[in-house]
């Protein structure tokens, strides 16, 4: 499609250009920043969207903020080296003679200290540091990236192809997974995206495909041979001996694992009603036997050079091994017999190639087109998107061979996207709520993303830790319940009462330092600023009594003298690393009883906690 042909039918749906711009911003960014509606209108709605689709805006400022996070630019091999797990630390410390059986046995405290010392002395980081880099960068990117749609789509696909940091054996791969697999392909082509997830160590480990082996593989030690070796090691109680035993026992117990195959069809492509059977699941699992993580991935693994030479050798290639970066197709673990999936025959001896064919089959299947289109429509349009819209998107999906940009363009050019049933009908997830708050307040720095993250967790979304492969459910009912709602309300109040350390924003600046001439005026001005292009009459009406009590000042004063504070301190929030920056609003002088900054903050806090701000 030619760019100039792109046209958004919002007028037909009865929206003004400004309302349409606000709707675009609500759906394709993590929330509008102040006056962003003006900018989008000025640029032209279609132009703005096309620019977001190309995701080439300058992000130098964001990148400067991320400079201190070293792991964000590391490969998996480098991360494994710099951030080894406890088992590796222990192994290295023992090899260096700094720990031995006795020091390990003396008690866990001592062991912890020895291991921490070893980490510090050698400049190794911990998983905790690694994960907090991942979490912090997500918060900063979502808040500050100029390529908002790219971040929204990265978040969307992460949730679609979910992995969880709860399991430490692959958590360290999440940084590369998000960066090299998801962000890189988030607006490209679905088949390419799918295939990248399939070959990533994160997914291979999370859904166990890495250890799925075929019964009919051409190579590999026989069961008897393995049993014989275990028997020989029985009396060897050294660490190496025990590790070897465990490894051999795992080999003995290994076999076909269907976890990935099932989720690949149920969650990633066809959908649960996509027309496949349990037999198909088993057959897909057989095709994907041997799809695994390159062994000796760690950059300084002593075995790495040898393994690289081995798997990159001409002989290995001839045998059918495929090594690409972190991925290895191990033909010796591959079930090489014939298979049939969804009626399509895969003849014996297909090797790595039959896997590629399988992904093509799944990625271009009509059920996949429908399933993915629906999921996109649920995220961007409404919890119950009209079938007519899904059909249009699915048609584009098939015609344009899974081109994600084209599917989005079809969606946003459909009247259903702009209909009254869609506008402000999505409820923000806790993450979206937190980030949209940062954006609408024009927060210039977030010094403690970790505290923000604690609030997001409290509101019901522990990002990167959702355990099930489904990802977080994408509907209002999941996010809104009695406690999450209360926490959402408290979040707004916490932001404006400086209870989230390290946030730098300036309420007076939002109104260009113009002083509202009355409390009513201030209320209206800030409602308009924080809820651009929304109907604010009811919010204003409901909050006016808060300002109009003639004795308000006296009552507040009296009550504060009594000093009966029932407010609960957020005792789990540690002291900020940097003292909270002095807010310019502290010197804000408005007028009347409303003019003191704490009243203004309170009103802003209430607007942030209002039902209208929960919607996007």
């Amino acid at each position, binding site marked *: 499609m030619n760019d100039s042909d792109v046209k958004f039918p919002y007028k037909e749906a009865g929206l003004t250009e400004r309302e349409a711009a606000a709707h675009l911003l609500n759906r394709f960014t993590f929330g509008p920043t102040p006056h962003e509606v003006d900018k989008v209108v000025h640029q032209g709605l279609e132009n703005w969207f096309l620019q977001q689709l190309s995701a080439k805006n300058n992000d130098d400022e964001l990148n400067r903020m991320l400079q201190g996070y070293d792991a964000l630019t590391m490969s998996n091999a480098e991360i494994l080296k710099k951030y080894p797990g406890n088992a590796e630390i222990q192994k290295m410390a023992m090899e260096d003679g700094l720990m031995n*059986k006795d020091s*390990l*046995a*003396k008690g*866990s405290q001592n*062991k912890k200290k020895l291991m921490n010392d070893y980490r510090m002395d050698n400049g190794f980081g911990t998983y905790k540091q690694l994960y907090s880099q991942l979490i912090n960068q997500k918060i900063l990117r979502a808040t500050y990236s100029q390529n908002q749609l790219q971040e929204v789509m990265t978040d969307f696909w992460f949730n679609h192809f979910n992995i969880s940091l709860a*399991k430490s*054996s692959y958590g360290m791969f999440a940084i590369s997974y998000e960066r090299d697999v998801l962000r890189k392909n988030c607006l490209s082509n679905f088949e390419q995206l799918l295939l990248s997830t399939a070959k990533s160590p994160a997914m291979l480990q999370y859904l166990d495909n890495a250890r799925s082996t075929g019964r009919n593989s051409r190579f590999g030690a026989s069961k008897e041979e393995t049993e014989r070796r275990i028997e020989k090691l029985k009396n060897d109680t050294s*660490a190496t001996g*025990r590790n070897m035993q465990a490894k051999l026992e795992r080999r*003995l*117990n290994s076999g076909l694992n269907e*976890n990935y195959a*099932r*989720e690949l069809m149920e*969650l990633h492509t066809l959908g649960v009603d996509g027309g496949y059977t349990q037999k198909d699941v088993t057959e897909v699992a057989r095709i994907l036997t041997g799809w695994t993580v390159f062994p000796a991935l760690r950059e300084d693994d002593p075995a790495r050079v040898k393994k690289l030479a081995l798997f990159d050798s001409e002989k290995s290639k001839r045998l059918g091994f495929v090594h690409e970066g972190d991925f290895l197709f191990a033909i010796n673990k591959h079930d090489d017999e014939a298979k049939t999936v969804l009626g399509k025959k895969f003849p014996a001896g297909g090797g790595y190639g039959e896997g590629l064919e399988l992904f093509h089959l799944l990625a271009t299947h009509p059920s996949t087109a429908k399933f993915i289109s629906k999921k996109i429509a649920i995220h961007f349009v409404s919890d119950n998107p009209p079938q007519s819209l899904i059909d249009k998107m699915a048609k584009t999906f098939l015609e344009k061979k899974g081109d994600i940009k084209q599917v989005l363009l079809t969606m946003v050019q459909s009247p259903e996207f702009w209909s009254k049933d869609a506008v402000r009908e999505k*409820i923000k997830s806790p993450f979206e709520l937190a980030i949209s708050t940062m954006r609408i307040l024009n927060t210039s720095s977030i010094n403690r993303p970790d505290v923000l993250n604690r609030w997001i*967790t*409290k509101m*019901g979304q522990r990002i990167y830790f959702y355990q*099930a*492969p*489904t990802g977080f459910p994408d509907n*209002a*009912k999941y996010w*809104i*319940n*009695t*406690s999450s*709602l*209360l*926490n959402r*309300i*408290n979040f707004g*109040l*916490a932001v404006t*009462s400086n*209870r989230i350390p390290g946030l730098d924003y300036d309420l007076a600046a939002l109104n260009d330092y113009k002083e509202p001439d009355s409390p009513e005026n201030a209320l209206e001005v800030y409602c308009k600023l924080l809820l651009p292009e929304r109907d604010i009459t*009811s*919010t204003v009406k*409901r*909050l006016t*009594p*808060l300002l109009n009590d003639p004795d308000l000042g006296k*009552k*507040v004063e009296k*009550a*504060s003298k*009594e000093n009966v*504070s*029932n*407010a*609960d301190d*957020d005792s789990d929030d540690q002291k900020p690393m940097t003292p909270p920056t002095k807010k310019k609003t502290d010197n804000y002088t408005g007028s009347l009883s409303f003019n003191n900054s704490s009243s203004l903050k*309170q009103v802003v806090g*209430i607007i942030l906690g*209002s*039902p209208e701000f*929960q*919607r996007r």
Partner: protein
Amino acid sequence: MFGISLGGVPTFVARAAESLKQNRLYKKKKILVCIFQRGAMDGLMAVTPFEDSFLKSARPTLFMEAGREKPLIDLDGRFGLHPAFKSFAPLFKEKQLAIVHGIGSPNNTRSHFDAQDYMESGTPFNKGTTSGWLNRAIGVMGHDASPFTAVSLTSSMPRSLYGTNEALAISNLNDFSLQVRENKFTQGLVANSFEDLYDETTSSLLKETGKESFDAMKMLQRADVKNYNPSNGAEYPKTALGKAMMQIAQLIKMDIGLEIAFAEHSGWDTHVSQGTLQGTFARSAADLSNSITAFWTDLGGDLQDDVTLMTMTEFGRTVKQNGTGGTDHGRASCNFILGNDVNGGKVHGLVKTLAIENLEDGRDQPVTTDFRAVFSEVADKHLLIRDNQILFPDWKGNAIGVMKS
């Protein structure tokens, strides 16, 4: 009741008040309390088959004896309770406490994450199950929903409670309040503003949930959870689990519709220096048993009839101790079930001698009771959930008689 449920759908508080008048419906509800022991408890140390010579020789520095002047508490001539669990002994004697030994998952994974995931989803061979078994239980009990029907005393929702039925994850009941750092007057003003705003919104979900949130908040405020005094001289350990159990007791006493409570207890992954009388295992065991018995004492006679408590852990540990004075990931473990309709005072399940030929993969206590047999029996007998296919879709086995019939 609080002067705000004027018209419209009666809120859960109004319904609660109503039901208190009519036959106290909520009172009749049964409550299941689950504690997940994360990290995999060594069942063979918790409840030791102390006459097993194979175990004795496999654990040169970890094995303890039972009998006079010996540390283990002899339960039945064959099994001995670790001394740190001593507060369990009277409960066992009074037949309120049952133990199932050899319990575990049919899936032989020894990964904490996977094993917990399977146990909590209730489907040991399917990772894709979206909901947890306890969440599915909420859906089939058929009582009026309260925001406190299912409560997890954790900071984020546990896998067991994932799902479409409303559940609450809250580590501290005090968080269930409007956090305005001013005086009571301002707090009241702010609260009124929010109530008005949510009452007015066009989104029915936000409107109804808003109403319930404010009602629930007021209810907790009235109950004054901050200044709670346990009954019957119960003393909770000042630990995370102790606090969680105390809050569960508070919720039960408030009588606000609690049916499922969940707490978790970490620290059971004893690879190193597991210890015997003292050490990491003993510390965890004392915390667990003291928290549970304090909770039980606090409830007292009447309320005990309504409650069944069950512990669970993802797998057990190797029969043989390892080179660092601990044990590694194994298969079967044991669990504890406490309640008045429990078939107590008995160690249920099948534990053969731990000779190598009786072990799973030549190293681990074999799983002889599928965890689903026990979980579903408890749900069936205590919560009266007859349709086990909803809780455990692939489960076709039989109950083992851990509950009174």
